């Protein structure tokens, strides 16, 4: 049923670009697994995890979900609101620190004689 001659509609891009992105997703996933497999610890572990995560997410959104080819009106309408989640993360991180502090001061096991 292949009708490659027909005028294509919508998001049509070369197959090769998908394969390249696909390959990179595999490589990046392997890298993030390696972080755990080789027991990388501390700040290096967290920064590597975040780096590979952001790269993978970026590749999926930009190419598989076609955001790289959409108009900026749509891109900004969808990608800017999640920043609110990051703000929420910041607030809750501060709140968690405070909760932990109060728990350690008043409730932590072993501190009560």
């Amino acid at each position, binding site marked *: 049923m292949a009708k490659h001659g027909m005028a294509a509609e919508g998001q049509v891009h070369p197959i090769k670009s998908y394969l390249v992105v696909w390959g990179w997703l595999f490589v990046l996933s392997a890298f993030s697994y390696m972080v755990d497999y080789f027991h990388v610890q501390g700040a290096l572990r967290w920064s590597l995890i975040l780096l590979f995560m952001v790269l993978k997410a970026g590749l999926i959104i930009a190419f598989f979900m076609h955001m790289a080819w959409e*108009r900026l009106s749509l891109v900004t309408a969808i990608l800017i609101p999640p920043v609110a989640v990051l703000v929420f993360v910041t607030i809750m991180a501060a709140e968690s620190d405070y909760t932990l502090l109060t728990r350690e001061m008043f409730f932590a096991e072993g501190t009560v004689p």
Partner: protein
Amino acid sequence: MAPHGSMTSAQAADPHAGWQGIYADWASDRTVFRNVSWGKAMMWVFLLSDTFIFGCFLLAYMTARMSTTVPWPNATEVFALHIGGENIPLILIAIMTFVLISSSGTMAMAVNYGYRRDRKKTAVLMLVTAAFGATFVGMQAFEWTKLIMEGVRPWENPWGAAQFGSTFFMITGFHGTHVTIGVIFLIIVARKVLRGDFDRGTRGFFTSRKGRYEIVEITGLYWHFVDLVWVFIFAFFYLW
């Protein structure tokens, strides 16, 4: 960029209108998302709302983990599998990750062949995607069974902070539900593609509208989003 008043349809169709295009689109007193059908725009809006849901789940997990005085169970050991006399850390989760990424690749190809109106390849690739998704859910069921047999409950577990179980079941459960729904939709759309509904303009049973190959891309958007969420769960829950 031409002034707004003299916007012609040819200029409106320019996909590279850049930053000026943003206020031109929003201020032109007509459909904002040009070249984007209502179906696709609504899927994006839904995915945005889903982003907030998963964002809040991960946020709740972060809050629980940061504020507990009891040590958090070590995911590397909890999710290790005993294969060939050796404990391989996180191996099941790694395989699940690769399965889901493979499915994302086949989905992207399905979208591409859909727009090229290659019915067979589109349907086959969608069914392969669905098979990968079903495999993923199956592996997740195995993982849940293993953890439940080891004594993980939403309120307790043998290794540390009690919140581990509740966040684990909530986050992976919600994600698994999304994958399952995705598999169902993939199969429905693949069947329509294979039947040639979108070539003949057959009306759908539910909306009685004529479908287009764009539905493959919209289903694909949902599927890629499910993969996207897994990227974050993998990083924050399993690797952190």
